[in-house]
């Protein structure tokens, strides 16, 4: 279900070039590749202001496709003493994304979050070194058409792209 890909980090002032590069890559590599990497580019865009604050963003990342509203859970090792931001993104217009980090007991540990226009982020200062769980939920907003047809529920389930990157300092 999930297709894992990666993309390079865009630098401040180079976003347009980055998006253009992704588009060119997409043209040469097929629709699915482009679809997935667009979500990563949204996540990386969300990360860009934090790079200026000293966060080093990893090149490796998670991405794929998921049904609207279905939560995804990523396991990841964090180290006490570091500060982390996780940024999630989706390229689907009008879709929202949220990201939450939980410790091994299932308790949310995010100190700060944001979610806007296909991008979301959460900041974490791990209390212990160990495995943490990052939950990503991408939701397609209901439309007037589907609300009339389906009683106001979400749009029919289909695949939405998602991407997750992280940085540390």
């Amino acid at each position, binding site marked *: *279900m*999930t297709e*894992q*890909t*990666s993309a*390079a*980090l865009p630098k401040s002032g180079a976003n347009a070039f980055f998006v253009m590069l992704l588009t060119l890559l997409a043209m040469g590599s097929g629709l699915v590749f482009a679809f997935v990497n667009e979500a990563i580019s949204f996540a990386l865009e*969300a990360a*860009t*202001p934090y790079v200026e604050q000293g966060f*080093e963003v*990893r*090149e*490796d*990342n*998670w991405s*794929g496709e*998921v049904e609207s509203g*279905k*939560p*995804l*859970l*990523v*396991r*990841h*090792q964090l*180290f*006490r*003493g*570091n500060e982390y931001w996780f940024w999630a993104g989706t390229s689907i217009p009008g879709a929202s994304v949220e990201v*939450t980090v*939980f410790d*091994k*007991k*299932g*308790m*949310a*540990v*995010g*100190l*700060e*979050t*944001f*979610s*806007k226009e296909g*991008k979301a982020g959460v900041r974490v200062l791990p209390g*212990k*070194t*160990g*495995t943490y*769980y990052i*939950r990503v939920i991408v939701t397609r907003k209901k439309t007037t058409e589907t609300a009339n047809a389906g009683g106001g529920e979400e749009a029919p389930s289909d695949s939405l792209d998602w991407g997750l990157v*992280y940085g*540390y*300092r």
Partner: protein
Amino acid sequence: MFVKFQLITLPLFASVVLVGSAQDENGTSRVTQTAGGPERIDLSHFPGQMVDKVVVPIPAEIFSVLDKVGEPNWAGGIQMPGDDEKIRDRDILALRFGGLVAEGFIAVQAKSSDDIQKIGRRVLSLAESLGLADAVRPHSQSIIESAGKRDWGKVREELDGTQQTVRSTMEKLRDDELSGLVSLGGWLRGTNVLTEFISEFFSEDKAELLNQPGLVSHFRKMMTELKEPVRDSPRMKSLATGLARLEAVLNQSPTISEESVNQLNLITRDMLEEFYFKKGQEESARAGEDGAKAPARETEN
């Protein structure tokens, strides 16, 4: 009446502050954690999809913590592997590639331009042996140039990028196994040098950095999924045994003792001797005349 007003309005005011939004530089709305208490989920009955992919932290992530709690002698931690020319097995080349990138991260901590430039060249040489030179060449050049400019952040970024490029290219070529071995090689080299520094000036805080059972478990699973004949080669069997020994040490108790750190050091060293260091080479060879660790040395395979 006044007292009641205060009791009611103060918490209300507090929650207004806590959920208040702010605009950051790019206009993104930021909302701090609400006062309603953190959300809790049942991880054993998660109503969604677990993502299989494991992203292995790069050594720099762990080194940055170590730098915050002490001043390790990073230069003394650099130890170049021997000649790569005799290596023909792609699985060993992949492991060594990961180890060499980790060596690069150690050299960045040591701010050793010369060692980083050597590593940049060696990385390209190994990539040539793996048939991935075209993909790695730009990274290699950037590592060398950035080291010359002492732009350590850029070097770290390029080292991470090099490893990622190699792994992605391997995966595109359906060489997922090799991609995993690159990660294992890097993780082992990083963990080995970490155990050295922690055992020098032991503290439970530092030892906690080694609490990585999820990663050990991931690598153990990966080794069982290797295809024959690679899985049954003596070196891979030895690495699989080493991972089992690491897991046993980490599961001994909730906190990692000094003795456990020393065990982890010996086990990772044994494992690195399968693909990176010369077998039987003694750690003491690195000690200088005054007992301090000497600068980077080279080993032979």
